[in-house]
């Protein structure tokens, strides 16, 4: 949704890198390579804004999410939240800083401990950060949180398996809200839900953003959902952002060939458009992130690729024919979403 977002940057990554070493041997480990899951990502998130991150499996978007919330340690680079570099904090400072950035996980069936009551699950953040809410008020806070996400506060003593998938996702959202964070990273929050339940959760996330002034990083493979909820969108391919811009620019005027191929492959629920849209079918598979192509990483599947693409890595920057940053030497607008005459 496009409510006006301020210019205040709440989160910024600088050249964020995560390489997973590939090792051989159990006792005497030898590094024989690295999976370059996230390979130099610069992002900015403003207050009250939703930044969508899209890409196919293996593009590094889930690793990016884990880096942002501290589940993985970056190999290099910085994550600045309110002027503090999270990667340089430790101990009490890190714990305190972490309160400000929370996450909603993909699978509502596995993200809640089946042996804890809903009250214990949503109240756990208060156990870990006892300074946030005095012990006597915790139960009341949990009830308020349940109410906030549209669940009955009376159900505080129930167990997760007594709830449906959509309700469980609401519990996960309530847990993420408990410490009153400014930033929430949503990793595929609706992809495990049924179609008729997805809209409920999307609308809930939008309402909470309006009411609480939250900033979202919304990671998803479903480009239609991202268009609906995001203000700006970053497209990732093999660990790098290849194109970034406001939602309208990316969907209406994409300039990177990968974005164009991705968008053209998304089916639109309107049979009158069948065969009317510009369809780009990519050949081959995504190369291994352990051994990405030289230069532009998309060149092995790109129909525009020339010699320069193999030698020179295109920078993510605005170009002559691209008003927004696009990492392609030959960036050029092509409408693949609407019917072409």
């Amino acid at each position, binding site marked *: 949704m496009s409510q006006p977002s301020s210019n205040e940057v709440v989160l910024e990554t600088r050249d964020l890198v995560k390489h997973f070493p590939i090792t051989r041997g*159990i*006792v005497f480990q030898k590094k024989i390579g690295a999976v370059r899951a996230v390979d130099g990502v610069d992002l900015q998130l403003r207050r009250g804004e939703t930044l969508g991150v899209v890409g196919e499996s293996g593009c590094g978007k889930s690793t990016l999410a884990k880096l942002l*919330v*501290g*589940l993985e340690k970056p190999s290099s680079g910085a994550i600045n939240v309110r002027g503090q570099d999270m990667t340089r904090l430790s101990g009490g400072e*890190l*714990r305190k800083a*972490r*309160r400000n950035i*929370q*996450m909603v*996980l*993909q*699978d509502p069936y*596995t*993200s*809640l*401990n*089946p*042996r*804890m*009551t809903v009250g214990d699950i949503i109240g*756990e*953040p208060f*156990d*870990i*950060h006892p300074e946030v809410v005095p012990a006597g008020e915790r139960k009341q806070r949990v009830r308020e949180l349940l109410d906030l996400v*549209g*669940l*009955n506060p*009376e*159900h505080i*003593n*129930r*167990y997760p*398996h*007594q*709830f*449906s998938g*959509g*309700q469980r996702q609401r519990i*996960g959202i309530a*847990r993420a809200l408990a*410490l009153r964070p400014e930033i929430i990273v949503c990793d595929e929050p609706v992809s495990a839900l049924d179609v008729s*339940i997805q*809209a*409920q959760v999307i*609308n*809930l996330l939008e*309402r909470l953003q309006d009411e609480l002034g939250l900033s979202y990083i919304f990671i998803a493979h479903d480009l239609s959902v991202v268009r609906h909820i995001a203000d700006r969108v970053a497209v990732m391919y093999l660990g790098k952002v290849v194109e970034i811009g406001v939602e309208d620019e990316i969907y209406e005027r994409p300039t990177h060939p990968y974005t164009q191929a991705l968008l053209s492959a998304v089916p639109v629920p309107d049979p009158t458009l069948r065969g009317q849209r510009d369809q780009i079918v990519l050949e081959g598979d995504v190369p291994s992130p352990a051994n990405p192509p030289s230069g532009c990483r998309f060149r092995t599947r790109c129909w525009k690729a020339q010699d320069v693409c193999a030698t020179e890595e295109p920078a993510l920057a605005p170009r002559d024919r691209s008003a927004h940053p696009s990492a392609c030497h030959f960036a050029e607008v092509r409408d693949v979403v609407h019917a072409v005459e």
Partner: protein
Amino acid sequence: MSNIESVTQAEVPTAAGVPVSPDGGSEKPRSLTGDAWEDLRRNWIFWAAAVLVLLVVVMAFFPGLFTSADPKACALSRQHQGPSGSAFFGYNFQGCDVYARTIYGARNSVLIGLFATIIAGVIGLLVGMAAGYFGGWVDSLLARGVDIVLGIPTLLAAIVLARRLSADPQDSGFWAVVFTLGVLTWTTGARIMRSSVISAKSQDYVAAARMLGAGSGRLMFRHILPNAAAPFVVVLTILLGVNISTEATLTFLGVGLKGDEISWGVDISTAAPYVRETATPLVWPSVFLAMTVLAFIMLGDAIRDAFDPRLR
């Protein structure tokens, strides 16, 4: 049509806010344990096993409830007498009441099984959790340790160990057997614990807790252990049965309980040479032993099925 009201109303079909719970709308909170209990309640195997286990435990602690005869009051004049009203299972070679001895034998058998299993359980739990949770070189080291213990032929090692531990002829051999069994049988439990800790560790809810800043202690004891314990507990119930029968084996081989201690193992070993003359002194302790072991194994099996989340 889309608005905030419809969101708050979402999935709450009635004004009272009764959620559509997938298991049939019963309103009281039910845990997994509660569900497992529902399952077990209707399982006759569980009940049969539970009744047998209870019976044996009562027998172990209050043998006087079952017999007024003294198991140590033996008279050679009654040697190999058949069953009668006063001695249901007859008399053995030494003229002792087989029924009374079998009842009194339960105590040593069950207690040895219990203590040995507790030792094995503690070692297995610690090793399995450490290996599974910390991984890396800790895991490699502990895994080799488990392999080494597994590689030792249990019975052979037990014979050597039990004999060394109870070299003193005055010693009953009770703790020697307990310790021997405990240190030799923890490996299965450790392996099970390790693998279930590893699978529980990778669950999303553990990641969620880590994200909130939870420390190792909270992760291990609040999130991982409760979700990883079920298979381990089942292995222990089975191990309990196995330990009871191994005690009998050791005693039969002459390295277990000694002197005038009473246990099923002792009775089986003393009755074995005379099986051609009269079988009852051998048969009854064997039947009790077999039934007890079976009861513990069946109980473990039933509990495992009830706690298996894949069946929900």
